[in-house]
């Protein structure tokens, strides 16, 4: 029987339902382990707007101070802003208290190294070993430092960096009418100021009160974005942006109120990025082939990695790519700004693209090569995974195999990708094809095999 885990300490740090499961003692111990790991330097701490954030932040700061770190409290801030500020300020590391797109009852610690990047697998393993060994550095009164508060600098730095990579005047001249849904999250204050003050948009914003709970599902998906879509039609907006609670993911809505497919969002961002900068593209295995078509137009190469932001980021670094991301999760990574998923880079690239082409967002989308995609998930029992994967292989003997992350079966015109989730006991699978019938046929065959 698949079980749901209300607490998970593992590859993605520590994540759980706050209360009985994710406790202040755990958060403090993790903070203490983190402080011990990065050494007695400065550590930045910020959070999204979850009501459990302050409690966890104080617990994490307690552990960091006990390890002899100086703590800079960045307050409520998008995750990418925290990452950038860590890297720019020569801090030893950073921690964001956010469960990102997970529901409000969850919270989590996202861990960054001194370069403002997610801990890689080796760093994570070392930290988790240290956490389990519980032999933390215990600073005495002579060494214990303070919490300093800085709620301004990170936001300023982030906006300045993004603006360096768009033609601000061209965008401002268009005075785009833009709708925003910040899910009452970490972008509630920064996003309106970014769109209105920095990019000169005529803004219609909803869900920008950081003191209120999430008014919709935290993950910006077509089903949960009815409000902004309606608002856009009502107010005749040219484009709509919806963020997740920590401002790393971005959903885009066209002028007709239609929520763009996440892979198309990434494709348009890649198009905008490649137009501006030399370099290749890095996406995960489960991202649409539309990226390959776009890259081919610019004569660039596409590298594919296992699913997970850290994997994409590592490859972007390795090949010095121009842009990358993960299609299915709405994550655009524009390394010129920072090596992280960043909804602000995404918003800027979109507005810039509209301004420079003079096209509407639906026209831009329509020009993308058309693919049909469907994603699904099924629970699985431990011990059955290998058998399931073998059955898949046997059923499609003519396909090319990629086993980098689960199993990807590739044909010239379509593909199937099946992988076990890192965070839940489920198998995720996706199918993509040039025609809808073909895609449905593939999807149904895989689904019936897995069930």
């Amino acid at each position: 029987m698949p079980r749901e885990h209300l607490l998970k300490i593992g590859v993605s740090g520590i994540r759980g339902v706050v209360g009985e499961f994710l406790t202040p003692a755990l958060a403090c111990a993790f903070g203490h382990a983190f402080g011990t790991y990065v050494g007695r330097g400065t550590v930045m701490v910020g959070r999204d707007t979850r009501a459990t954030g302050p409690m966890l932040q104080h617990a994490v700061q307690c552990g960091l101070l006990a390890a002899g770190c100086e703590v800079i409290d960045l307050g409520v801030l998008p995750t990418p802003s925290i990452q950038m500020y860590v890297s720019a300020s020569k801090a030893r590391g950073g921690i964001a208290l956010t469960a990102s797109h997970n529901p409000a009852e969850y919270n989590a610690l996202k861990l960054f190294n001194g370069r403002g990047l997610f801990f890689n697998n080796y760093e994570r393993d070392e930290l988790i070993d240290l956490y389990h060994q519980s032999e933390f550095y215990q600073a005495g009164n002579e060494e214990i430092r303070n919490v300093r508060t800085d709620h301004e600098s990170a936001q300023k730095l982030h906006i300045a960096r993004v603006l360096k990579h768009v033609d601000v005047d061209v965008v401002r001249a268009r005075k785009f009418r833009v709708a925003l849904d910040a899910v009452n999250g970490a972008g509630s204050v920064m996003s309106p100021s970014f769109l209105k003050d920095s990019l000169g948009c005529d803004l219609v914003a909803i869900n920008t009160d950081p003191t209120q709970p999430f008014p919709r599902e935290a993950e910006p998906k077509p089903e949960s974005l009815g409000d902004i879509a309606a608002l856009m039609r009502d107010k005749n907006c040219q484009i709509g942006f919806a963020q997740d609670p920590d401002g790393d993911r971005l959903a885009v809505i066209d002028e007709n109120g239609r929520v763009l497919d996440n892979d198309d969002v990434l494709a348009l961002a890649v198009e905008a990025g490649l137009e501006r900068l030399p370099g290749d593209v890095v996406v995960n295995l489960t991202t649409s082939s539309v990226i390959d078509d776009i890259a081919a137009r610019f004569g660039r190469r596409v590298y594919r990695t296992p699913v997970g932001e850290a994997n994409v980021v590592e490859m972007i670094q390795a090949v010095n790519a121009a842009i990358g991301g993960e299609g299915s999760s709405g994550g655009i990574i524009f390394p010129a700004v920072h090596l992280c998923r960043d909804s602000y880079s995404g918003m800027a690239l979109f507005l810039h693209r509209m301004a420079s082409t003079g096209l509407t967002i639906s026209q831009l989308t329509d020009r993308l090569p058309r693919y049909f995609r469907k994603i699904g998930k099924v629970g699985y029992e431990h011990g059955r995974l290998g058998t399931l994967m073998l059955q898949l292989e046997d059923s499609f003997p003519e396909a090319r195999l990629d086993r980098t992350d689960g199993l990807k079966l590739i044909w010239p015109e379509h593909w199937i990708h099946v992988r076990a989730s890192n965070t839940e006991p489920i198998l995720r699978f996706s199918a993509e094809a040039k025609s809808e019938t073909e895609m449905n046929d593939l999807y149904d065959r895989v689904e019936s095999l897995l069930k």
Partner: protein
Amino acid sequence: MRARKALRISQVGLRGVVGSGLTAAHVIDFASAFGTFVEPGKPVLIGRDPRASGSMIREGVVAGLLACGHEVVDLGVVSSPVIQHAIRRQDAAGGISISASHNTAEWNALKFFGAKGTYLSTAEANELLDIYHLRKFRLVDWTGVGSLRVDHGAIDPYLDELAAVFDFEQLKRPKVVVDCCNGTSSLILKRLNERFGFHFILINEKPNGRQFAHDPVISADTISMQLAPLMKPLGADVGFQFDVDSDRVGVATEDGVAVSEEMILPLIADYMLPRAHGKLVITNLSSTALLEDIVALRGGKVLRVPVGRQATIDALAAYRSDQIALAGEGTGAVMMSQFEFVYDGIASMLTILSLMVERQLPLGEILAAYPRYVMRKAEEPLTSTRIPELLARLQQQYSSGKINVQDGVRVDWPGEWFHVRVSQTEPILRVICEKKGEAPTALFESLIEQVRESV
């Protein structure tokens, strides 16, 4: 085997050397235990002394309390009495003072207060310890996690309460020097100067979290270090010295004499007893017998209880509050009925100033007029297993006197007494002797000999 001294978890709370004894994990668990213990739905007040480790402990205390669903009000760097009075005024569920009080800088501690701002009774303290040891905390779900509010305005309402009892105009007359020992008293005294026009001359007035100018314990030795030698050169009428969280006070006379911490309670009794509704003065078995003389003169009665804060707190609870005038120890820590039985060094200082103003005498002369008692104290390391035998032998040996065995052995004769007891905080035996008029040399030497034979 002796326990490591760097951490002590007891009815008095959590205390230890930060890092080597007291860790972040202890703080989180103890704060969660207290959050579970106190009444839900009401705020919990916290404050801290300037120790550097207070920043770490504050974070843990806030996290533990928020996780139990409490609204937390952080009063910042303030004295323990300021926190205690604020708890009562704001009808809070309770509070925590992050302070190791009179210990040196590397120590820190959590002091827990109940709904009225007073220390927990033994029964309550035991319940808190049980919750801590069980680690079954009432952590609320994600919808109920509390929020933090910062309130740095708690000193003024505290001063208003003092102003309602003392005649501030009169108390401005003596020239007063105060050694703040880099603690929280300076914040209160500066405010008294600023707001009410006092002229306190402050030394070691800068709160310092790393190192204190001297050992913050209140004793004639520490008062002699900086405060007493300044008295004559500055032409001061009196000098006061506070511990780091300002719940204790010590004095130096106009002649630069460092007064024993034993004298604080008798001085306060002398002034306050005629003004208090109750006539009972609670103190422990080890403090000076001068108290009985003064209290008798002022129409009161002394109740002696075992040494330690907990025994005093429990004795307070055993009487109606209108029966009690004062409670205190020979350490310079005194609580008064007028101030809701909160150990308060500032209120104690104002009482001693009031006594001087009323008598129109310098402190040295007031003290000189009291009957003279001479106290001798010693500490001997102990072997725990031999203690019962020693105490039994002392009772036999000194059966001519009145024997009290509430806490070790105390024997009283007219004009002379001794008390032999085991320390609650260190593995030592304490021997105290006092005689009216002269030093209790013979008794003291014979006691020390017997104790050494046995340990």
